[in-house]
């Protein structure tokens, strides 16, 4: 499965959701589908997208929060799984694109290439709903189920270690930040 295929599945559904994505290929590919004011691209602070998602989910309980994470990022902050699961916000869907590598910094393998199971770690941390999918069809099914469930859910999507040629986005960090904050305020 290509990451962009999963993003395309989600894109039509997340018009009105709070979306936080990690840096690198995930941010660039989501941006390439068309930027929206409700997208925040966390271009540094690796590992903290899910912590931001928790802060957003607790602060906006009536909005759905989508965190787009990666294997390398999540491995840098595994404690987040215990913290998020403790609160288990019903409005949080945690997507992890697992390409088993640190693609944007040389493609070095991560521990998921050697068997670390992020959905399994999430389950044992207290995520009741955590699933690993390998195909676009399975992703689509898991995504629809997560949206209908209205409980904390994680989908680990095993994706190819490929990405866009460039990670450049025509969106200054602070423009994104203030636009996103204003959207949250006016929404």
């Amino acid at each position: 499965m290509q990451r962009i295929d999963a993003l395309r599945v989600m894109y039509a559904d997340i018009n009105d959701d709070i979306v936080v994505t990690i840096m690198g290929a995930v941010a660039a590919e989501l941006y390439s589908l068309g930027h929206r004011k409700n997208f925040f691209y966390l271009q540094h602070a690796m590992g903290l997208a899910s912590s931001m998602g928790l802060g957003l989910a607790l602060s906006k309980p009536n909005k759905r929060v989508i965190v787009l994470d990666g294997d390398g990022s999540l491995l840098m902050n595994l404690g987040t799984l215990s913290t998020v699961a403790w609160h288990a916000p019903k409005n949080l869907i945690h997507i992890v694109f697992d390409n088993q590598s640190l693609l944007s910094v040389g493609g070095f393998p991560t521990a998921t290439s050697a068997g670390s199971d992020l959905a399994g770690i999430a389950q044992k941390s207290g995520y009741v709903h955590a699933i690993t999918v390998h195909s676009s069809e399975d992703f689509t099914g898991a995504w629809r189920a997560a949206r209908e469930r209205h409980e904390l859910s994680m989908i680990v999507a095993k994706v190819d270690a490929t990405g866009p040629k460039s990670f450049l986005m025509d969106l200054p960090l602070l423009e994104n930040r203030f636009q996103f904050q204003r959207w949250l305020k006016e929404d």
Partner: protein
Amino acid sequence: MENSRIIYNGLKRSGVKIVSALPETWLVHLINMAEADPDTTLVRLTREEEAIGISAGAHLAGVRSALLMQNHGFLAAINPIVSLAFLYKIPLLMLISYRGHMGERDPWQTQGGRFTEPVLKALDIPYAHLTDPKDVERQITEGQTLAESSLTPVALLLSRQLMWEA
């Protein structure tokens, strides 16, 4: 416990709704107060770094938050302070117990005390010492005001004099 109550009242007066914390002996009463308060969400962390992300999300969503941490926890959170709070202009209200300074008996706490203020200065983070209970509530509301107007982290150092209570 009296002084912790004064600090907690300062947080309430500042409009804080989310408190993230890692326990430490000086912070026990404050954490218990946050937990007992139905109007406050207490987020128990595994590491202080998470708190920077949680407060960033809360701020962008219009909710005020505060961080309770030991100075060693502050030292553990330097990267996200730089690469999230500074990068994206996120205000933080950090209440930091100032261990390892004058009067410290625990040898294992002593090194963090040497570097807390030099690191705050190196990062150009405005900070104040909380020592006298009669000033504390005002100092907290002032810290919150500055954090939000300047969109930067602010540190309030909780002193032994204030916190070492039975």
